[in-house]
């Protein structure tokens, strides 16, 4: 049970759920949460590979920390964009934001 493939499968499930959510949700907050899920899936991959294939160097952990920082920054920017959009549209539904339709 305590194998690499288990972690990879869990990470893949996390990533796929995130992707599905990202494509399917119309709520911008929901999309943002889905992106977090995808990032977590990726982090889990890094941690698992680090743990099983290269125990000594902590590169995978550093990348994971990096991804967490990235996620924080992304959430800040994403939320502010959502806030700006809400002020303009009074909605956070992406279907309402279609001004760029050709």
């Amino acid at each position, binding site marked *: 049970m305590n194998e690499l493939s288990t972690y990879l499968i869990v990470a893949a499930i996390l990533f796929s759920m995130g992707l599905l959510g990202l*494509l399917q949700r119309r709520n911008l907050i929901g999309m943002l949460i889905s992106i977090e899920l995808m990032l977590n899936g990726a982090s889990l991959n890094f941690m698992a590979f680090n743990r099983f294939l290269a125990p000594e160097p902590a590169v995978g952990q550093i990348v994971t920390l990096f991804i967490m920082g990235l996620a924080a920054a992304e959430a800040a920017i994403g939320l502010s964009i959502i806030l700006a959009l809400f002020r303009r549209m009074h909605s956070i539904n992406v279907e309402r934001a*279609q001004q*760029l*339709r*050709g």
Partner: protein
Amino acid sequence: MASIFLQDPILPAVALGTGLPFLAMALILIFTRHNPRLSSRISIGAISVAVVSAVYLLVKLHAATAPIQYQTAWLLSDTLTVPFGYLLDPLSLTMLMIVACISFLVQIYSLGYMAGDPGFSRYYAFQSLFAWAMMNMVIAPSMLQLFIFWELVGLASYLLIGFYYEKWSASQAGKKAFVMTRVGDVGFFLGIILLTLGFGNLGIIDINEAARSGSMSSLLITVSGLLIFCGVIGKSAQFPLLTWLPDAMEGPTPVSALLHSATMVAAGVYMFSRIFPFFAASPDAMAFALFIGTVTMLLASTMAMVTYDLKQVWAYSTVSQLGFMVMALAAGGYFAGVFHLTTHAGFKALLFLCSGIFIHHYHTNDMRVIGKSGGRRLVIPIACMTVGALALSGLFPFSGFFSKEAILGVLAGHPNKIWLAAGLLGALMTAYYSFRLIFFILFPAGGIEEKAGHAHHEDIHGHEAHEGDHGFTFWLMVIPVMILAGITLVLGFFQSSFEHFLVGAGVDAHAGEGGHGAGHYVLLVAAVSMALLGILGAWIEFGRKGAAQQGFLSKFPRVWELFARRWFMDDFFRRSLDRFVYGGLTSIFTRNDRRVIDGGIDGLCFFTIAGGRLFSFLQSGMLQYNLLVMIGAVGVIILYFLI
């Protein structure tokens, strides 16, 4: 190629003399446009240096036995070398002298004539441009350099004709002159190209040498000679292209004196004499030139007999005298042609400058009005103008007598006597129309109309009063005129030494020069009596007391109209322009423009717009569709790398 030593003072003298006017033009246009006094001083200073260097070169080289040539390679291409430099032989030295001196005198004169004109600086800049281009053309050692400066001279002419560009007719005349001379220049350029292809060298000395020794095929000489002669037709206003010159009188009068009578229009004749041995090697080209020259001379004389415009008369007379020079050269009289060019430059500049004084004074070009307002009271100008008219008619002891005599001598030596008869007829008409003008001013019908009051008072005092009024500017104009009159008076007596200088110094002693001799005396009497007959005719019709001042031509209104409308040549050009250029060529180009170019661009725009419409369907504006496509693409890339 005889290259000369650098320590020799000739090179700096030439460079200084012919380069400074360009510098003057640049200085005036860039720095001193708003300071007319300084501009005129710069320009006159430059031309003075040119005069000094021309005199120096003439004195230093008058005994030189061989032409002095200096050139450096300018353009190199495979087998063709285009040199740049100068060629000094008696012909170019003479012409250099004429150009420098008359430019100098005209620039001095213009100080008075153009005083107070808003374009004063511009005027002097263009004058310098002209002087530079003309002198460089004169000393050109190769046909290509000659052609380049030939075109620059045309540019100066265009700028100066259209000097009063606010005036519609002036700007039109400038364009007309430019386009019409360009028609001839196309032929000239084709001739040069043909010569380059067929002979491979454009050096004037080489061309002449090859033509003389017969190493050039006669077909090449004839064809390229005829093409090059087109340039002469355009520039020197010969038969089909002569109507631009009378229109060019829209420019300021000093410009007409310098460019459109004395020097620039003589450039065609100069070029003809420059490669005279080349032309002389082709009898067909010479016969054609003789025909064109004769037709030009006679046509222009008839036109001069009916116009009332002072400057127009002299313009037609210039055309006619240029035709006369071409006749002389084409009949084999190298010396006669060049001598007439020299004397004509003097007395025609004189005539124009005198007319300029009248025009400046009375603000009209109409000779009848000038006569009625008392033109003869300007004693010095009218006296000088009479001197010029006598020279133009070819009467002893004025310079025109000698040169005209020389030309008629050459024509008499020609086997076909028709040309001699035409020459004598031309002399008759020349005397008639010149003295028609003189008598109009001297003896106006019904006397001088006295103006009332103040003007009357002024008129009583005559020219002294005017001189007092105008003072300095008047003398600025009169002194160059008097100098030119003096030159006209004495130049003829230097004929033999000039002939020795020009022909004896080894340029080309051509047969036919001494062909007369026995018939010379008869010819002299014939020519002078023709001139006197012309003057007598003018006297009977315009000069004597109670003369009708109508002229015998007014009895034939049809003929009068024919002459006055320049033998309908302008109408012919207009008509053919409308039919062939606007109706034929231009309509094709218009259609090409509308259909092909406009249509092509419209089509391009249409396809761009349609393509944009098509692609805009991809822009759904839905964020997640874009995302889906992106992820799908990434998936495809992954699949591609995995498999």
